[in-house]
Structures are given as C-alpha cells and as structure tokens.
C-alpha cells in the first residue's frame, strides 16, 4: 500500500510515515497543501491522510481539490477537533472519506486505510 500523509506538523507526519514503514506501508509525507497536490499529480496513492487544520489550504479544501484531480482518491481526514464519541463511533463516513481524531492509534489508522481501500 502506498499512502500520502499531509500535516503541517513535520514531527508528527514524519514519525507517522516511519511507523507505517515498519508495518510495510510506503508513506510519502508533505507539510502543506501545494506540495500535496504536486505529489497527487505526480503519482498514484491508495489513500491520502490529510490534517484538517493547516495553514494555507485547509484539509477539507485540499480534499476537494484532490477529488477534482482524482475523483476516486480515497481520503482519511485527521482532526484535532474530534470528540471521543466520534472516535468511538468511527465518525461520520461517506464511502470514500473517513474522519479520525488526533491522537491517532496507528492500528486504527491502518484498519481504516484497508477498509476504505476495499
């Protein structure tokens, strides 16, 4: 599986990429929306994991732009605004989008990635 991680917190996103690599998931990471769009255009990702609150292009806006380029792109949104109820209930879901609340449990993230891919 090949994923793209987008988050303005470099420490977070780089560490997450490393941890995914331990689990056999190839992860590219960028820290802003512009770079993310370039990556999306340059190659195919199975899943894009986007932080919602980012300077410049917000995660939601970025998601829309990605879908303009690749309508079938699967996306998981991460948010620091999520609540425990969202977390427990798996948040609102719509086929090709998932929401996850920070801090993320890596097993849950991988599970959701697989789920959304299928």
């Amino acid at each position, binding site marked *: 599986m090949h994923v793209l991680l987008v988050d303005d917190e470099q420490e977070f996103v780089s560490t997450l990429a490393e941890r995914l690599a*331990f689990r056999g998931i190839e992860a590219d990471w960028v820290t802003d929306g512009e770079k993310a769009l370039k990556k999306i255009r340059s190659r195919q990702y199975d899943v894009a994991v986007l932080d919602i609150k980012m300077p410049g292009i917000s995660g939601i806006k970025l998601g829309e732009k990605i879908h303009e380029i690749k309508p079938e792109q699967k996306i998981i949104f991460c948010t*620091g605004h999520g*609540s425990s109820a969202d977390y427990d209930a798996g948040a609102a879901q719509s086929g090709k989008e998932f929401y996850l609340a920070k*801090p993320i449990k890596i097993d849950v993230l991988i599970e959701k990635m697989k789920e959304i891919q299928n």
Partner: protein
Amino acid sequence: MPFIQKITPAFWNHREKGWNTETEIYVYRRKWMMLILFISALTFIPLGILTAVFYQMSSEEILNELNEETKINSEDAALELNLFFEGYINNLGYISTLYSRKELTNQKTLQLIFQEFEKNYMGFVELDVLDEEGRILASTSGIHLSCLGNDLNHWLENVKKRKAFTSISLCGNKHNPHLYIGRYIENAEGEPFILRGTLNNLLLADLLGKFRLADIQDVFLSDSKRRLLTRSKYFGNPGKKVPYPFMEHLPDSGQITDKSLFISKNKFLIVGASHLNGTTFTVGVVITESQFLRLMSRTTSQIMYIMTPAAVMLLLFIIAFVSYAIDRLYLGDMQRNNYMEQLEQTDKLSSIGRLAAGVAHEVNNPLAIINEKAGLLQDLFTFVEEYKNDKRLMDTVDSIITAVERAGTITHRLLGFSRKMDSSVEECEPAQVIHDVIGFVKKEAEYKNISIDIDLDKNMPRIVTDRGKLQQILLNLTTNAFHAMDEGGHLEIKGTAGTKTQTISIKIKDDGCGISPENLKHIFDPFFTTKSKTGGTGLGLAICHGLIHDIKSSIDVESTVGVGTTFTITLPVKL
C-alpha cells in the same frame, strides 16, 4: 392534610434574605400584609366616610322631623288652650244674657248668681263686674283688689277693643299666676260694663299636664315678653325668661344647647311655640335629646346590620384576592428563578466549553506528536531484535502511550463538550438508536459481566431529532452507569411513549453505588467527578446536560446510595 395547611398559600412560609438585612424574612408574607393594609385603607376609608355622611344626613333629617313635629305639637296645644279659654268667655257671655246690668252690679245678687253658676260650671274662683273705667261695681270676693295692678289699664283697653280678653298676671313675690278672663258687655238697657272671671289655676295646670305625653316633656305658657306665665320643667318658675331660639314669627321650633338647662344626659332641647289667638300668650312645648336618640338608634341599627356584614365580606374578599395575587407573584418569581438558574448553568457550560475547546485543540497536536514518537519507540523496540526482549523499556513506552491515550480521551471529551455540532435533524426509530448505542458498549458490559435488559414500548412513535446527539447522550449515560456498577451489575433500559403522546421517555436504571443527595445537586456541573482517581473527567454528564438542552428535552435523576440510580430523558416526538 389539615384544613389550615390546605388553605395556606404557597408563599406563606417562604423566607429569604432582605435586600438590606442579613437575616431571613418572610418577604411575600410582608408584601401580603402591606397590600391588604393598603387595599383595606383604600376601601374602608371611603366606606367609613360614606357611612359617616349617611349618619349625619339621617341625624339632620330626624332633627328636622322632630322640629316640625314640635311645631305641630305647639300648634295643637295652642288650639286646645284657645278652646279652653273660649269656653269660659262664652260662660261670661251666657251670664250677661241671663242677667241685667242692674242685677249683676248688686253685690248680693252677684254672689247668688256666682254660687248658682258655680254649681253647674266649675272653674271661676271669682267674678267681678267693672265699669268702663275699671272701677269694680260688684265682686264675689268682697276684696276689690286684683293682681292686674298697673296692667289694669292695658287690660281694660284690650277687653274693650277685643270684646273678650284673657290675661295672666303674676302676683306677689312668688309670681303666682292669676288668670283673668274679661268680657265687654254692651246691652241696650244701660251703660256698657265688663264681666271679669278669675279662673282656677289648677284647671289650666291640669290641661297643660294632659299635653305632657311621652314625647313632649314640657308645656308652658309665656307672655309677649317671653316671660314664663306657668311653671316649666326646664326653664323654671313663672316670671323667668324663656330662651326661645327663634324669632317672633310663630309657630316655629328650634334647638337649645344651653348646658345649664340640661336635665339628665340630654345635650340639647327642641322647643316649639305657637300664639294663642285673642291673647298675648305663647304656648311652648319641649322635647329632649332622648327622643332624638331613640329615633337615631333605629338608624344606627340599620347601618350596623348593613355595614357589618358588608365590611366582613369585603375584608374576606380582599384577603382572598391579595392571597391569590401574591401567590401568583410568588410562583412566577420561583419559575423565573428556576429559568435563571438553568440559564446560568447553560451559560457556565457554554463559557467553560469555549475555553476547553481552545485548550483541547492546542494540546491535541503536541499530544499527537508525543503519541507518534512514543509509538515509533515502541515500533523500534518491537521490530529491532536487540530491544525486543527488554521488558522494562517496553513497559516504559507502553505507560507513555497509555498516558497519551488518557490525555487524548480528556481532550476529546472537552471538544465533544464544546463542539458546535452541525444540527442534523432526522426522523429515526428510538429503538434503533438505543440498540446502536448498546452495540458500542456491549463488549465493555461483557467484560464487566454486566447484564442489560432492554424493554421498549411497541407504541413508541418515530421521533424527529438529532440522532448523533441522542446517541452521545445515551452513550454517556450508559458508560456512566457501567462505572457506577460493580462486576455482575444489572442495567435496565426502558423506552415508553409519553402519556400525552407528544413525548417519549427513555429510562436508564442501574443498581450501582448510587449518588448522595449532596452530590446529586452537582452532577451536571462541569468537572464535577467522584472518579478523579480512576480517570473521571467530570465532563460526561455536563456534556449530556448541554446536548439534552440542544434537542429540547429534559433529564431527571433519582438516586439512592447503595440501591442505584435512574436517569429519565423525556424527548419531544418532533424537535
């Protein structure tokens, strides 16, 4: 319930601190009393004035009536006296027709005539025959003196002018009244002469005595100079002046308030007077205040019979009306206070929520980094053989991750508490929502060996509400119940259609440790927790409270320590 308690208004025993005092006072009872005093004053003062005016008018009317009555009485007395005097004047006339001047002027003959006459017509004590100059030609008394004295000329003039004249002269120091009746006789046979009879005083006294009935206390005769000619009960013996309170135009009547005249407790006298025709006499009659008081007592009784029940009824009505008004005011105030408390609670939740959201979001990002870094360490130790078996290192990393998870739970709860969730109102099946929620917590129930009974009324209607918020409320309440119960506990969830069908209620009942009455007051306050040692954030029920408010529902709680707690949510069928 005793009768007194039944009629006691709700505000009666309510006490609170006054605005300028530290001690508690009966605020509403004080208002009640003030209002009763004020309205009573407004009602009874005009009523009292009206009564006084009515009393005054009645007394004036009665006085006028008494005055009029006294005047009529004096006229009647004058009429009677006139008839009395005319009777004797006619007797003198009768004598003059029976006997000639010659016979009458003979002393012996006159004596015989008088004796004969006295047998049939009692009354005269003396009979005299006078010439036109007033010289006595013959007399039955043998003493040719009379009390007329200086008044003789005046008397003669009147007799000649009026042909018949009655007068009273007061004789001696004791002013004994002598009553003279004179008749001027003009016969064809000789010179004119005057026949004068002196009347027995007792006859007049008897006649006046007849007039003294119950109402009339006194009757007397006075002359043109207002001098008493007969004895009066109130004005004294003959010779004294009568203080008539009116002018000369008789008949008339009026009031005398001269204290020196009062006998017994009377404070005034009503005096009436009338002229006697053919004389210079005035007859006076007196009635006293007691007659007036007797008539007034009837009016007073009438006033009392009407006014007393009316005043009692009015007072009862005022008390009832004021009690009702103050009761409504009290209930209104209490309701407003409740709203204010609810508003304060909501406001408190809202401001704490906003603060919490800011903190939670800012903490979440560094927390995510710690989480990932700790996760990476764990991965490194897991995937690198060298550290794989170092239990101490693994435990340390695990405890960091556990602590981050705990911190994350708190920030998630804080965010959930404050988050302005987009309203997504939809029609849903309450039974389905309950089953979904139980689905989430089933694992935990199994883990703690807690049995769950779900009893749902088949008539429960579908409801239109925010499904997400309802789910969160139920989730928080069931999680709360789990924390309150020991292993092997029992949770009961009961859904029923409301009695008015426009609501449904969901009851969540546990048999856990229960909540003490002191804690029960604070369970919806943010950060209030009795589980701080085991990681309780004190936000679960505060969030519930906010969400309940959002979906226009209400929540009630009943709890007994050691028995369990029941939360009841009442939801509208349509939001």
